[in-house]
């Protein structure tokens, strides 16, 4: 069945390989933006994100035959990326992955109950036109211990269901929800602590910024 391939050419392409390459191209075309977005949210910096995307598609290419189609292609890719990410991080050895306890999120003063950022009366899209707010949110997410960040990014940013997140990170739904909740509380506290000023002050100041009750 094989066509005799001249051995000297740099990349002898068998029928199978050609098929794999064609499906890979489709896979890459359809999902590279999604994976880059995911990787950027996980890694923070664009260069690390690009490395992660390359690693993800390389592993996907190599494992393409093993993909049986019983999961969505994107879920399969997310899982490959999540694994690649923890491998790459381990090599870089960042901060230890600490546990977040609920107690640490109980506000201790009146001002901590609300977000000290300009979001009241604005849609999230409008609020996020404020560059400072976008950066503060990125910083807050980057500060999350990685296992919490993974769940928050997959669930709240990539929009996967708790069940899908569970299949990617190897947790049951309950554990996913518990992790997600702590991650959200963490980001809330970070945002609240950063206290961003309004970018375009409206007449006599934003009601949101007027401190206590």
């Amino acid at each position: 069945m094989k066509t005799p391939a001249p051995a000297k050419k740099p990349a002898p392409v068998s029928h199978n390989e050609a098929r794999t390459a064609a499906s890979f191209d489709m896979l890459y075309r359809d999902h590279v933006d999604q994976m880059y977005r995911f990787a950027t949210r996980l890694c923070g910096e664009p260069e690390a994100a690009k490395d992660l995307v390359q690693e993800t598609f390389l592993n996907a290419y190599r494992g393409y035959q093993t993909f049986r189609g019983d999961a969505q292609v994107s879920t399969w890719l997310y899982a490959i990326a999540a694994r690649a990410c923890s491998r790459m991080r381990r090599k870089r050895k960042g901060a230890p992955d600490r546990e977040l306890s609920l107690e640490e999120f109980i506000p201790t003063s009146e001002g901590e109950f609300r977000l000290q950022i300009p979001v009241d009366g604005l849609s999230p899209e409008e609020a996020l036109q404020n560059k400072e707010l976008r950066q503060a949110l990125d910083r807050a997410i980057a500060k999350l211990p990685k296992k919490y960040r993974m769940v928050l990014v997959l669930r709240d940013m990539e929009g996967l269901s708790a069940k899908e997140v569970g299949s990617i990170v190897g947790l049951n739904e309950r554990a996913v929800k518990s992790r997600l909740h702590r991650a959200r509380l963490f980001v809330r506290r970070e945002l609240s602590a950063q206290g961003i000023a309004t970018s375009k002050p409206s007449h006599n100041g934003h009601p949101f910024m007027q401190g206590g009750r």
Partner: protein
Amino acid sequence: MAKRTTTRSVQPKPAHRHGKGRCVAILKKLSAYIDDELPGTLCDELRKHLGACPNCEEFVASLRQTVALCQHQPAPALSQAERARMRNDILRAARPH
């Protein structure tokens, strides 16, 4: 509905009066509450509490805002050139020689 309402008469004015244990119990459920995943009775109970405790209500609002911000945070896109360069790099690495 069948649950007793023990927190009701406590707060005549805005204050955060309940103890830490109660706070943790409430705090624990807030994501399920904003995701609409709490069973009816628990949800009613929590809503009743929030109505009586402005601080907790603000806290829930701020958690909801946080989640909405995460959901809408824009992400950078790859340029056409980067996309093509990465594809070539991947294929080069994937082929043995």
